[in-house]
């Protein structure tokens, strides 16, 4: 088991190096030099060249890469041009909002798709199954931002039920339970938008994994032993469909973080996604690269974690190579 963990963790190293090279390349491609907008326009080119030399801007590329890598490894991602603050601090300030949003969306989509997937997987040929599978096709075909706008129009401007922007009501300064309630009201729309596409995907995946399991010999044997439907489903089917579920969830989390960009922008949700969109609009490349690097490393970590969990659930995995 430990050997598997170590071996799996080692395969992540070249990927990590690849990610850092790619981000560094992008940093290098960005137009302008680091002093654009920072120094007075009457600085002579000689003075500027001297300053650039002093911070190592004119060093060979690989020296710059190693230095950048060393800083990034210590959590130093440079300074944002727009905010004048360290990038890692800005990410830290916004991170909890994105985690809250993506977490609620994930919880919501699991709460809906688990029972649905199980139900439709067990009754593959029913009318409900056919309708649900068509519905999930429709749901994955709707661009999330269009869905968001339709929901805003219906729930916020037509029926005036839910707020559409921000995390809290501005100027109300709720505390305690009232604050939690306020945040909950604000999170309903963006979390639903993020969850809806996910529900369609998760449901489809679970359905196919459950309906494949049903055909397996061990399930037939369990039924033949005279076990009740419930006694087969709960310990056997659920445990076996947990494996693909880990895969899907681990793949959906990066998807959620990425899709949060559009959703957060539309709902004015102050998370990482909106921060990166603001960074693009303000041509704030250090901030943008910092966020990209951060999200890529998080994704890598989640993939690693999923593989480890996989080995816990399914002992066969540990023996592969």
């Amino acid at each position, binding site marked *: 088991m430990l050997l598997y963990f170590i071996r799996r963790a080692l395969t992540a190293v070249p990927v990590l190096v690849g990610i850092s090279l790619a981000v560094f390349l992008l940093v290098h491609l*960005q137009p302008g030099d680091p002093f654009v907008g920072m120094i007075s326009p009457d600085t002579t080119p000689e003075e500027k060249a001297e300053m650039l030399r002093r911070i190592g801007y004119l060093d060979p590329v690989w020296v710059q890469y190693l230095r950048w890598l060393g800083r990034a490894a210590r959590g130093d991602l440079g300074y944002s041009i727009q905010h004048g603050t360290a990038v890692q601090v800005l990410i830290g300030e916004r991170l909890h909002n994105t985690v809250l949003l993506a977490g609620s969306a994930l919880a919501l989509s699991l709460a809906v798709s688990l029972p649905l997937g199980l139900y439709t997987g067990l009754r593959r040929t029913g009318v409900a199954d056919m309708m649900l599978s068509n519905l999930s*096709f*429709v749901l994955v075909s709707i661009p999330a*931002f269009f869905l968001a706008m339709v929901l805003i129009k219906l729930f916020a401007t037509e029926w005036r039920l839910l707020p559409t922007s921000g995390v809290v009501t501005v100027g109300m300064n709720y505390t305690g339970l009232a604050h939690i309630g306020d945040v909950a009201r604000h999170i309903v729309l963006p979390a639903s938008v993020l969850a809806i596409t996910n529900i369609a*995907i998760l449901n489809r995946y679970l359905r196919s994994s459950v309906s494949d399991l049903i055909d397996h010999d061990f399930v037939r044997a369990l039924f033949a032993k005279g076990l009740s439907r419930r006694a087969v489903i709960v310990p056997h089917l659920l445990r076996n469909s947990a494996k693909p579920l880990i895969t899907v969830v681990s793949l959906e989390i990066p998807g959620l973080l990425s899709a949060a960009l559009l959703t957060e922008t539309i709902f004015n949700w102050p998370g990482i996604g909106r921060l990166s969109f603001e960074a*693009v609009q303000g041509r704030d*490349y250090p901030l943008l690269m910092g966020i990209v690097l951060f999200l890529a490393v998080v994704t890598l970590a989640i993939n690693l974690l999923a593989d480890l969990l996989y080995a816990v659930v399914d002992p066969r995995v540990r023996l592969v190579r």
Partner: protein
Amino acid sequence: MVGFSILLVLVALALAAPWIAPFAPDEVDLFAIEAPPGDGHLLGTDEIGRDVFSRLIYGGRVSVLVGVSAALVQILIGTTLGAIAGYRGGLSDALVMRLTEVIMCFPFYAIAITLAAIFGASVWNVILIIGALHWTGLARLVRAELLSLRERGFVLAARAMGVSPIKIIFNHLLRNAYGPILVYATLAVANSILAEAALSFLGLGVRQPQPSWGNMLSAAQSMRVLTYQWWLWIPPGAAIVLMVLAINFVGESLSRALSPRPGAPIRDLGPDANVNSQTRKERLWPTRFS
């Protein structure tokens, strides 16, 4: 069949845009600014008096162009690299797989808007960005197919007869794997259309005055348009949904038709297909876009 017919109609509309559209996409009607539907303008006009229906039809051309070209870029990169990895194995395989893992680690929108900001927003850049970031799934798929096919007797026979590796890959291996590739390519068109719409919506894809469904939708970022001028944003949104849905249905029927197991779509990999992390990401359908 329904999906295919809808798709055919939409593509025909887009291709025949100059003959069908009542106005040019950038023609300004100063007497009808923000006019509601009816009265000469089937779907009303936008904030500078351009006919929404005409822009919608011309916008369809952008969607078709981006969807198909981005899918072609993905097929080109994905099949080539996947074939090299699957056929050669060893070091080339390891390199290609690490490369796909690196690309898959980047969140699509964050990296796409970064690239769009650096290289500039235009139709061709959007195609290249989507194509360059989304070939990974296909490469893994082709690799997995080739890995199992290359052990078969007919490949050994071909090799023994001295057929060149390129010919083996094209004539023997890819030809046997065309089913999943075709299905994947179909879904890639749908996903590319969604990605283009999202990037254009953010102002980092197709630029005004050229109409695209995504940049038409960005009009609804203003609360006034969203609340009172439905004809500016509901039609392009509905067009995207219709087009993507039609393509997804076509992909689904293709998948059923080409599947070795009758009635079961090829892309639903069973639980045992997921035993180790190498095959883990081969699942086709949910390449998540927006």
